[in-house]
């Protein structure tokens, strides 16, 4: 059993598990932090961005000035943004049988894998994961395709050149494998390979392994996975939450008794309390708006935004914000809001009960009805007519490198009345802001990451007690910026095994048993015998049938009737098949009883001699000698088959067969 680690990003994992005869990819995360190295893609021509100076080497060599631009001391690639893919060379990805997706954030690399590696298997995911994942991909493709960029920079990627660049470009990993965004066609083709599954559904893979998604409590339809055979169990925990937000609560009990628990997707901000952050978000938002400023919230089109809208729904009236327009701008804004209302069975109990009334589970339906929340596919079109300030805008992309958010950054960045509030934890806000510097607008960092923190993890591990824990190396040491915080790492016994990108781990367990079925006819013919109190044995001789990785034992065939005399008998037909195994014997032979038995069966003239280790029984008339010792019996006789067989059967009476 092996684990191939294709991604180094702890919250955007991509691992391949080889278990029994199956090859299972666990998640397909796409590391988008690579885009922070690129210049933003403005929706409207931006003189500021297009006039940034080209970057030149210290010695004045300016051969890269077309590709690299400098802004406030940072260097950016002026090109179509590119993403850092999972490793594609570590293992032949065409051998992957299935891909299990745990949540919509962890499937963004799917088109790269399913469309370009020879992958022919099946992808499993829940319906909300697929639908919202599709929206995220659609948004991403739309953001990038609607601002076509002529330039695709590649000179800087040259290894010798990259060494000369300033950080962080210098340290960027695997830049040669960075890829541009996929197309909608590739997205559709990738999504068509997905098979929908429900929580607690048992899915058989080739009869060898069973996989089951469990609610993970992190997002709509998010799941952890159990991968098990009859005797081994691997739990894959990815992006789980114990907080009560909108999704169904996490199923912890089903993770119990795992041989191995693979732990990924913990909170990226272990020191921040999500509830506190939501409070700060609301108060900063209110403060800015009251002072006549605008609020910009860079966000994904699904997920935390539902919770933020719900908080605002309860907050705006009491905070006197009822006249302030809230705008949600995304090519998939409408779809996201609509989809959120139809996945009742994937929601927490409170929201589920709403549909019985019947009422929409999320209150943003009411915000839309009362015109407090308006949504638009982009800043173009209707939005430009309806746009009123001051206002609050939710829009993507949280990296601030593409999407409508770029426009608002350019528009509002110069005024200190405005505020940008970062809630998504995936990107460092300072790095995200770098190409917009110098900036007058206020920046508030309220990262809301509801995933497990280390206290919750250690409680969870105590509860479910896996034999071994496997996790990304980042979790086995304190965060680099807070090296004294030894509480910010996984603490378990035995210590967790850690992995890093491009590593192959041999997982520490040996398979010892496999399930096999004994057919009822065979079971009826078995003769159990009690060896010790409570333990019975039965010897089994049966025919093994294996089909689709299922093993069945059937009764041995009846000896075939000799086939008439038609065929000439070949001498070799008589030769016994030495591969027919005789049972092993155990026990010992009490000499006195044995002799009595011999006498009863008509042997006379029996003489018994003692030896160092046992006895010798002599049948003088038959010139036969039987050596009996504690663990062996040796019959030495003339070539008299009838006699030998008689003696053999008498000896066997005293022994147990195995």
């Amino acid at each position, binding site marked *: 059993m092996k684990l191939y680690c294709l991604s180094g990003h702890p919250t955007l994992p991509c691992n391949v598990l080889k278990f029994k005869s199956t090859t299972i990819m666990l998640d397909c995360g796409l590391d988008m932090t690579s885009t922070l190295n690129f210049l933003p893609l403005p929706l409207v021509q931006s003189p500021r961005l297009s006039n940034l100076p080209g970057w030149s080497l210290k010695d004045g060599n300016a051969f890269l000035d077309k590709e690299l631009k400098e802004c406030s001391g940072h260097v950016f690639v002026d090109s179509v943004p590119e993403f850092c893919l999972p490793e594609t060379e570590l293992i032949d990805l065409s051998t992957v049988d299935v891909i299990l997706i745990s949540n919509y954030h962890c499937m963004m690399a799917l088109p790269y894998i399913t469309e370009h590696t020879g992958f022919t298997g099946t992808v499993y995911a829940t319906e909300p994961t697929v639908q919202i994942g599709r929206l995220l991909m659609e948004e991403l493709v739309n953001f990038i395709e609607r601002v076509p960029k002529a330039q695709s920079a590649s000179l800087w990627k040259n290894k010798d050149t990259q060494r000369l660049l300033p950080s962080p470009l210098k340290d960027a990993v695997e830049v040669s494998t960075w890829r541009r965004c996929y197309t909608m066609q590739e997205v559709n083709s990738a999504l068509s390979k997905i098979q929908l599954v429900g929580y607690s559904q048992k899915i058989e893979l080739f009869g060898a392994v069973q996989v089951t998604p469990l609610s993970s409590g992190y997002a709509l339809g998010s799941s952890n996975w159990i991968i098990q055979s009859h005797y081994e169990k691997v739990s894959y925990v990815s992006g789980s939450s114990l907080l009560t937000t909108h999704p169904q609560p996490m199923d912890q009990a089903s993770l119990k008794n795992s041989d191995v628990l693979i732990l990924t997707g913990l909170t990226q901000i272990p020191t921040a309390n999500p509830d506190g952050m939501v409070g700060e978000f609301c108060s900063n938002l209110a403060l800015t708006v009251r002072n006549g400023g605008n609020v910009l919230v860079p966000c994904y089109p699904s997920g935390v935004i539902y919770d933020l809208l719900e908080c605002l729904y309860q907050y705006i009236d009491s905070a006197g914000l009822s006249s302030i327009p809230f705008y949600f701008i995304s090519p998939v804004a409408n779809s996201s809001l609509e989809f959120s209302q*139809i996945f009742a069975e994937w929601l927490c109990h409170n929201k589920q009960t709403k549909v019985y009334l019947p009422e929409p589970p999320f209150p943003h339906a009411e915000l839309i009805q009362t015109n407090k929340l308006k949504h638009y596919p982009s800043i173009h079109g209707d939005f430009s007519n309806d746009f009123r300030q001051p206002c609050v805008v939710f829009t993507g992309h949280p990296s601030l490198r593409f999407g409508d958010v770029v426009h608002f950054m350019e528009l509002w960045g110069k005024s200190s009345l405005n505020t940008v509030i970062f809630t998504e934890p995936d990107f460092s806000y300072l790095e995200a802001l770098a190409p917009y510097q110098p900036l007058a607008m206020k920046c508030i960092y309220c990262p809301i990451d509801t995933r497990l923190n280390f206290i919750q993890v250690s409680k969870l591990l105590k509860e479910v007690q896996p034999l071994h824990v496997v996790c990304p190396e980042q979790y086995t040491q304190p965060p680099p910026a807070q090296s004294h915080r030894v509480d910010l790492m996984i603490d378990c016994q035995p210590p967790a095994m850690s992995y890093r990108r491009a590593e192959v781990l041999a997982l520490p367990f040996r398979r010892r048993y496999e399930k096999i079925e004994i057919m009822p006819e065979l079971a009826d013919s078995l003769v159990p015998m009690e060896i010790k109190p409570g*333990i019975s044995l039965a010897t089994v001789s049966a*025919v*093994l049938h294996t089909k689709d990785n299922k093993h069945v034992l059937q009764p041995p065939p009846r000896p075939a009737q000799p086939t008439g005399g038609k065929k000439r008998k070949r001498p070799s037909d008589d030769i016994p098949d030495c591969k027919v*195994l005789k049972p*092993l014997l155990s*026990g010992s032979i009490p000499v006195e009883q044995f002799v009595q038995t011999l006498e009863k069966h008509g042997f006379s003239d029996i003489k018994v001699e003692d030896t160092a280790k046992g006895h010798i029984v002599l049948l003088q008339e038959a010139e036969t000698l039987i050596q009996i010792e504690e663990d062996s019996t040796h019959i030495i006789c003339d070539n008299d088959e009838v006699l030998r067989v008689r003696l053999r059967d008498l000896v066997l009476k005293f022994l147990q067969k195995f």
Partner: protein
Amino acid sequence: MPEIRVTPLGAGQDVGRSCILVSIGGKNVMLDCGMHMGFSDDRRFPDFSYITRNGRLTDFLDCVIISHFHLDHCGALPYFSEMVGYDGPIYMTQPTQAICPILLEDYRKIAVDKKGEANFFTSQMIKDCMKKVVAVHLHQTVQVDDELEIKAYYAGHVLGAAMFQIKVGSESVVYTGDYNMTPDRHLGAAWIDKCRPNLLITESTYATTIRDSKRCRERDFLKKVHETVERGGKVLIPVFALGRAQELCILLETFWERMDLKAPIYFSTGLTEKANHYYKLFIPWTNQKIRKTFVQRNMFEFKHIKAFDRAFADSPGPMVVFATPGMLHAGQSLQIFRKWAGSERNMVIMPGYCVQGTVGHKILSGQRKLEMEGRQVLEVKMQVEYMSFSAHADAKGIMQLVGQAEPENVLLVHGEAKKMEFLKQKIEQEFRVSCYMPANGETVTLSTSPSIPVGISLGLLKREMAQGLLPDAKKPRLLHGTLIMKDSNFRLVSSEQALKELGLSEHQLRFTCRVHLHDTRKEQETALRVYSHLKSVLKDHCVQHLPDGSVTVESILIQAAAHSEDPSTKVLLVSWTYQDEELGSYLTSLLKKGLPQAS
């Protein structure tokens, strides 16, 4: 011998009050808990005293499963759980859980408020009953207890309708509830995997019908409605608030839009809007097309269909009215029917099955003079049309489902005896499986022989499988091992391992036979002759001549020695263990025949 027992308390050779008891692997499950539309006395509910006369139902039943929200499948539930008394779990899908209490309340109102029945279940009882419900999601495996598990499949009959697999160990039963094998305008088709249950319990409403294409039926329906409206007549379509109603609304809505028709379409009762709202919230349970397009246009937001007011029934001019209930046995549909029945310009279209005893059933069977309450006689002059829009599988669909699931046995419920008989024959012929059709109260017993799962040590299995791959594996090979049974833990291991685990040592049984040969040559030469002889006979065995002069065949040792008295005789000592018994015995008899003369 383990067995599966099935007893219908309702829906045995009948349509109505579906209620089927199943015992499997020591567990008792009740499938559906319906009422009968054709009766208003005791017979309307299943006879629960059959389950137990004096004990508590909770002690006898492990769980109750409701397939969908139609009253003939859930109408007796509050009576069963609150009045007879059952506190165990009741499983149903989420849409069923949402809609079922509304229909129950509706049913209660008609029974108590309109008909004035006493001793009926109350609103509070409906609420208390629903508290015992556990929601089941499609394909989720629900562990009722350690041994009993259930799983829901999409049935496509109404919103949230499901088929259920009930499984204990390796034994399983599938209950279809009502289902539809062809997708329609708002629901998808029923689907099940090849789960090979021991028994498939299927509905058989349309056991003998093979319906023409759905398109023809729809065209026919639209033509009839259109013609009646054109000549100024009124069309009454009795429906149940949820289910076919939405299907036909979508059909008329699109037709009205296409033809730009102006005649009003109404939908009776306040339920409608609420009903449509449920459909909007449960979009994942509808068909693919609606799921794909719901963001752009929700099919359940109707432009042409408006709420009906009682006064409209007397307005002049053409109109189309959907009114509940669907079998014209009570309520608004019956009221409107009485008003409109007298005019031959009007039309009533029955879009679904009608149970015996209802007005719907009477007019469909040609009766034109109806005796109403108070000895009034109603003469029916309006046109009566029947169009099967009920979302039940027809004979072809039932056969298709049987083919999909590949059951070992089939049991028919929810149909008429005569029609069942026909279908039973067809199933037995085509699938070569037994088919049963018990009447209510009659028990069908199937004996099963489940195989026994044990754990085989991987070493033993791998050894066997590797040998099974050898080219000479034409003869079936025997796997030999020892089954260790400790408590309920069964493990099959190699004999060596079994001995080791139990702390026993092996007892070696060895034989040495003296074979006398007439040979004047030296022992070494005799041995060599033995070697070449055996080598030529035993081509498939490993025959070796060792440096010390002895010969081995596999693990059997042969040594030549001089005879103590007769120098022209040599003694061959053939020695083998019990495990080589066959070969050893064969060798001695072979050598006894003597060696071929050296050429």
